[in-house]
């Protein structure tokens, strides 16, 4: 699971109102090289919850100086864009789980694929 996806996921456990962001508990993390595409990174940045990205990268030990606040002129800062690219697309959680911050319910991640299915009694 990449952090771009994690940034957009929320807990849908019944009754939960503060289900975002999900807490990442990783037992295996991998970093792959993915071709840097600044235009894509610039298109995604406005859709992100920036602090959730920073926290997730930090929790995985891959924050790599991502600033706590996003500067307004990020489009011109290639160094920053490369760091964002790495965090969004190159860091992958292979094994672990995502935990709902309110209910504690865990969604397992296996072979890089999260399983978000709820059981019939949670729906």
């Amino acid at each position, binding site marked *: *699971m*990449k952090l*771009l*996806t994690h940034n*957009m*996921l*929320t807990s*849908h456990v019944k009754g939960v109102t503060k289900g*975002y962001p999900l807490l990442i508990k990783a037992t295996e993390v991998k970093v792959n090289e*993915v*071709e840097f*595409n600044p*235009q*894509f990174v610039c*298109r*995604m940045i406005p*859709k992100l*919850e920036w602090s959730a990205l920073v926290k997730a990268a930090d929790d995985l030990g891959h924050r790599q100086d991502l600033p706590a606040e996003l500067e307004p002129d990020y489009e011109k800062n290639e160094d920053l864009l490369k760091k964002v690219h790495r965090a969004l*697309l190159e860091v992958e959680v292979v094994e672990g789980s995502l935990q709902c911050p309110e209910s504690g319910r865990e969604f*397992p991640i*296996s*072979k*890089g*694929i*999260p*399983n*978000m*299915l*709820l*059981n*019939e*009694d949670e*729906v």
Partner: protein
Amino acid sequence: MCIVYSSNPHTHSASVSLQSPFVCLDGLSEEDVRWVMARSVCAKSAFELWGHGRTCAELQTSLSSYPSENMGPFMHKGSTYKINVYTFNKTLLFADRIKKIDALEFLPFEGSVSLKSPEHIFCLLEDYGTDPNNIPEHPDYMYFGRWIADGQRELIRSHSVKNRHFIGNTSMDAGLSFIMANHAKVHENHLVFDPFVGTGSLLVACSHFGAYVCGTDIDYNTIHGKGRSSRKNHMWRGPDENIRANLRQYGTERMYVDVMVSDASKSVWRKAALFDAIITDPPYGIRESTRRTGSHKDITKPLDSHVPVSQAYHLSDIFTDLLNFSAEHLVIGGRLVYWLPVYRPEYCDEVVPLHPCLRLISNCEQTLSSHTSRRLITMEKIKDPEELDSLAHLSDPRFSPYQGHNAFRQKYFSGLNKKSKRKGTEVTVRG
């Protein structure tokens, strides 16, 4: 299909005969044509029309009236060219092709012929009709033009499902996948989502056009690439059979974002306009079952730890959920493209689901059998949803006439049951 176009700025029309593979378009620039041909998997080639007619004499007259200043740039001394002859519905002997090319000698070519690498290619296109059992001696119609570009029909072969690493029973064929990506106006740097991703055929096509892709499916085994193979002679799927491997096969692995096991009726995404396009082929309940998580009173089998109990996902609910999801999560101007199964004897346009935030762009039918077809629906988001928009289908009958159609699966199988009863066999309905 061959497109012949003229850059006549005065008219803007298309003349299309359903039978003929030739389409004549007016009022386009060469740039427009190249742009379309770079994406189209339906169009074979495009030419700038210089002349046309039913006979050689008519063609020659037509060519003589084509402005010579428009011909000049492509025929000047020092340029190289070649002339091809395309015959639709007829095979010509080589000698006859040469004769036809020689008959065009009257054209003011000043450059020299280069068969290997000409700067300009011209074509004589001959239409011998559409009946392979009744081929006329002379063409019904002829066109002469300058070749501009070929379409992307090669993608249908190169991305054929036959050669794909990972397929399933309902993998979308390559041609249709690319058509859907075009309907959704998928572009470079877009983020595209498929909520019923299956084996990822639609994502493969979108990644080819430069979009980053993600998908979900309720079926754990399909997402993980496990279980029985859909290929003849293969029992179980191998380790290289999953969606990511499919993208890798075509060189677009860098466009892979994620796939997840998830129930499309229970959104896992935060409320925001995240996706540039949503492209999907929801289950019809025929070859795969429609499912969602939820309580089911008649559980008889023990549960797999990662596969929660599922209940029948009514067909009309699938589309209500899909439209609401799209209204919430598409960017403004973003498109939803999906297949809607219909029972033909009862179909009318009002059956197509609508939503206050989505504008219906197109509705194209593909016949599946005498009484069933599916329709490729394209919608575009025009505004963000307000409080009560998701319930519009309850208050306004216009927004849920698909309800009655919900019996699609029943109707589909009742047709089969009637046939099989005559033969004296039984058909079991898989739900």
